[in-house]
């Protein structure tokens, strides 16, 4: 019973992470992409906890979803928010 729950949680989280990653790649709004990427990091750290690697999970949570996101946002603030090219927007 516990095993199935574990696997179901695992699969749901993985699908969520993949969906967020695809959205981040496709999105034109770079701030949105950054936030989605931070979310992917958060899910990844959760999966690391499930895999019993708490050390890696702590590093992933703080680096992936705090530091990297802020560095990217600072970089975007100094450049442009929307990707160029294409017709619309």
């Amino acid at each position, binding site marked *: 019973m516990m095993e199935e729950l574990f696997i179901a949680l695992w699969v749901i989280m993985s699908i969520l992470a993949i969906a967020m*990653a*695809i959205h981040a*790649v*496709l*999105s*034109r*709004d770079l701030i949105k992409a950054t936030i989605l990427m931070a979310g992917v990091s958060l899910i990844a750290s959760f999966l690391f906890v499930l*895999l019993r690697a*708490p*050390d890696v*999970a*702590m*590093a992933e949570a*703080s*680096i992936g979803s*705090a*530091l990297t996101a*802020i*560095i990217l946002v*600072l*970089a975007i*603030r*100094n450049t442009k928010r929307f990707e160029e*090219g*294409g017709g*619309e927007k």
Partner: protein
Amino acid sequence: MMERYDIHRSIPAILLALLVAATIFYAFVEVGFGEAKVDEEGSVSNRFISNSTQETGSSNFVTAVVVNYRGFDTLGEVTVLFLASAGMGAIVSALPAGDKRKRPIPPSLILTAGTRLVLPLIILFGSYVFVHGHLSPGGGFQGGVIIASGLLLYLVIFPEWKAPHKALALSESLAGLSFAGIGIIGLAVGGIFLDNVISGLGEAGMLVSAGLIPLIYIAIGIKVGAEMTGLVARMKGGDA
């Protein structure tokens, strides 16, 4: 309402991602994550798991591997981090100052007071993580990054704050020096660089145990915290 995707432009990115995913899957399908492989006689991980507590005194054997068995690698990692931070500082400080057109809205009193109240707690948690590196999950890198994220919060809330770059550089250098110094003490006393010369001190599971490992992790924590803070402060610009 919905953002319209431009699929054609993203096809190379998607193909690349699929290729990488396929490669990773192909490479790791044999590994079998989550399976216990400790029953194999003579495997390296088996040896680490069964002997590391007696040999190093550290209850967390990830820490034993990172700081003791592979301590020299860790010195290399710290050096790489230092080089990355220094290189980025050099590039960013050579750039012209950004335009100040987009002035952010000043934070409200609730945010500033809350940050001032929460920041010491975050720094305390970071220090807890790196002081307890040999007992519980985490360690110098994680603790340092937690401290850096707390200071980052401060930097976001108080944009006019000038990061004390001199003090950061000083603490970073001192921490790096003490890491190398501990290594040299090991070389002088035990004949091996980073030899854990006082590993017998204290019993495993207590705070004072595992010899030099906590000291090394404290040094790494301070170093990583200072480096990351300096990196983000330079990235933000201002006095870079």
